């Protein structure tokens, strides 16, 4: 039997840099095939070439035994290749039906609405075709993405990190749908770095590292450790949870009935010497919480206390002067200004807090010294001596913005997604620095979607769901399953 898709020697060069080099990949009809690799291993580049969004520099693609040239997503779809993107490629201002119609040649929204209803019922992906995408939840948006693919009756469905936005329970429902599709003969190419779910779902796997293929295997016969070792290239040190001393210092950050945006009545106290984690899938109110904490969105004075001072109305600068520091989730354009040099990016958050400005004049030398310290202490690497922030890699920029705040030795540090899109080495550096800061007496609050990370870092853990925060519990007493239920909004789970 000929393979559905056979890729050989596929290569993509960006300038001198090979994002993918000589990749071979074979997928049969109905096969559930995983594509594994760390960030930057070349997974996205590979599937973008298969989906026609990138043109290969070299290599060939055979579809059902025929040599094909996939010149664009349109060609891919015509062949029967569908893709669900990690960052949704939906049109917010358009309705569900309009979004689906755009992906089907010649379709008009009004005429395909009945079919959307039909298919959504059949695969238990309930959705109203007349609703605007803007008004949908994250989970619903993913359903629209999947529906859009299914209506094209694909032979191969590419899923790019689909569970990163889902609760464990939502993910289970997705796996059921995918298994059913594969039973009907649809091949699935499943991209992930979550090894457990790959083992549960997939029957074969291709592992990439540094743009090259390093192994193919049957994930059911591997252990997560053995696959992780293949992905990283050496045995990985498991995140070992530090033992919590059980002793807590004074309350340094206190939220009292915080209401802002979609946040509802949030209470939380973070003491000196502890790391508190906030778990939750994307878009449950983390952004509103971060904005309120930084002071970008002022609230009633008593709702936020920093070092015993009521600071709900205080500006970010005043909060920094009181000893707080912040690292928002988005590096580009929020934590850092990409078109400015690194010393200027120090100035961004330190101008008054670290006295880099005197009488309105910038102390250029002090600013540069700061920048040099962060670069050497956190091993921030760059191609040139005076780089702009935008030219650093994601991991290095993250080390820079985290390091910038940690080196201030703040009494309170609030950090969101500390290791998002960061390579394992840099992630280890960042996590270690956060723990060390807490050990030195600071109150550290970590907001993250990465449960593994939170379990490793946090002394106590709370879950944010639909703008509400569960009451924090000691991490030792929690199981991943219970956190998953809380993430899905089952607030009244019996302890």
């Amino acid at each position, binding site marked *: 039997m000929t393979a559905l898709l056979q890729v050989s020697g596929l290569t993509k060069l960006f300038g001198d840099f090979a994002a993918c080099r000589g990749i071979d990949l074979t997928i049969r009809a109905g096969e559930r095939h995983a594509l594994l690799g760390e960030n930057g291993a070349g997974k996205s580049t590979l599937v973008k070439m298969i989906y026609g969004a990138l043109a290969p520099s070299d290599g060939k693609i055979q579809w059902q035994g025929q040599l094909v040239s996939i010149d664009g997503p349109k060609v891919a779809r015509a062949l029967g290749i569908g893709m669900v993107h990690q960052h949704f490629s939906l*049109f917010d201002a358009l309705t569900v039906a309009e979004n689906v119609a755009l992906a089907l040649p010649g379709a008009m929204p009004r005429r395909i609405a009945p079919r959307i209803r039909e298919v959504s019922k059949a695969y238990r992906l309930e959705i109203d075709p007349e609703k605007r995408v*803007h008004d949908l939840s994250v989970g619903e948006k993913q359903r629209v993405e999947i529906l859009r693919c299914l209506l094209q009756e694909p032979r191969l469905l590419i899923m790019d990190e689909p569970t990163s936005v889902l609760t464990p329970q939502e993910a289970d429902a997705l796996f059921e749908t995918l298994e059913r599709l594969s039973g009907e003969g649809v091949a699935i190419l499943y991209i992930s770095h979550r090894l457990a779910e790959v083992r549960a779902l997939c029957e074969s796997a291709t592992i990439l590292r540094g743009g090259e293929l390093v192994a193919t295997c049957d994930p059911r016969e591997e252990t997560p450790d053995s696959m992780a070792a293949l992905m990283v290239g050496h045995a990985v040190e498991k995140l070992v949870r530090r033992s919590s001393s059980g002793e807590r210092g004074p309350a340094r950050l206190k939220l009292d009935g915080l209401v802002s945006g979609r946040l509802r009545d949030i209470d939380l106290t973070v003491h000196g010497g502890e790391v508190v984690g906030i778990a939750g899938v994307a878009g449950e109110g983390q952004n509103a919480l971060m904005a309120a904490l930084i002071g970008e969105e002022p609230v009633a004075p008593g709702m936020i206390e920093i070092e015993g001072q009521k600071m709900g109305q205080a500006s970010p600068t005043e909060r920094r002067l009181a000893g707080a520091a912040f690292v928002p989730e988005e590096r580009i354009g929020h934590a850092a200004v990409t078109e400015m040099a690194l010393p200027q990016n120090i100035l961004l958050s330190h101008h008054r807090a670290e006295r880099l400005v005197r009488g309105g004049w910038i102390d250029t030398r002090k600013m540069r010294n700061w920048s040099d310290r962060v670069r050497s202490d956190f091993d921030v690497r760059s191609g040139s001596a005076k780089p702009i922030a935008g030219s650093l890699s994601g991991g290095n920029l993250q080390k820079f913005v985290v390091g910038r705040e940690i080196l201030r030795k703040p009494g309170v540090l609030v950090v969101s997604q500390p290791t998002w899109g960061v390579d394992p080495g840099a992630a280890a550096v960042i996590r270690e620095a956060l723990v060390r800061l807490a050990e030195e007496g600071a109150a550290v609050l970590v907001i993250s979607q990465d449960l593994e990370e939170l379990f490793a870092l946090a002394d106590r853990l709370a879950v944010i769901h639909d703008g509400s925060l569960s009451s924090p519990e000691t991490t030792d007493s929690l199981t991943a399953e219970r956190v998953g239920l809380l993430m899905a909004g089952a607030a009244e789970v019996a302890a």
Partner: protein
Amino acid sequence: MEAFLIALLIAATPLLLAATGELVAERSGVLNLGVEGMMLMGAVSAFAVAFSTGSHTLAILAGAGAGLIMAALFAFIALFCLANQMATGLALTIFGIGLSGLVGQDFVGQPIDRLAQLQVETTAIGRVLLSHDVLVYFSFMALIGTYVFLNHTRAGLMLRAVGDNHTAGHALGLQVRMIRTLAVLFGGLMAGLGGAYLSLAYTPLWGEEMTAGRGWIALALVVFATWQPIRLLFGAWLFAAVTQLQFYGQDWGIALPSQFLAMAPYLATIIALVIISQAPSRSRSVTPAEIGRSFRAER
């Protein structure tokens, strides 16, 4: 009253034509601040052709063509060279002011025949509605056509899609740059027609900078209409009514110096912008999300 309503429909036409074109461009995600310049080139080209050939048909085509060429210049710089759209639009306006002055220097003060109007002797309502020239009726048809195109055709859906999220559009295989180029060209064609209307019908004369800010008012109209074609109509009538103040104000006993009456449309534009940006924002923003942003396909 009858004369006022007829004059109102006439004064609304150039605004309506230009605003309809700009609305389509903006829905595709492109902000072209060069409307004033495109209108001026449309006006002078139409006048020059009418004056030299006597043919109004050719003149109208010349006006549309001039707007189209100006828009092509914008498309090249803003969409192909990825320059800042606001700066490019300003350059287009400045260039249009200059070039129309240069082209039109021999035509200043020359007379031409006005664009022919229907002559229907019926009731007052009939005269208000049926005593106009071809461009007045065309402006209505273009507006309705634009409404149908945007909301009921697949091509219109594609255009709205790239205006909402060009990255997603590209991922679906939509030709973002091509769609935007066509939308900008349509905008230029309509602005050219709006200019042609000024020099062929509104005041059948050519004068330097005769658009007097109408291109900018058309831009404001699109905001005022919250990017909905049919609302443009009411906006254009409202502004035309205000413009007519300077001619009818004295008759109506408004004892203000003429300069103050002439300020009315500009002040009305500002007030309209304030009111519309004040309106409680609905759950989703009405502004095309990608407006003014450059897009380059990575392949």
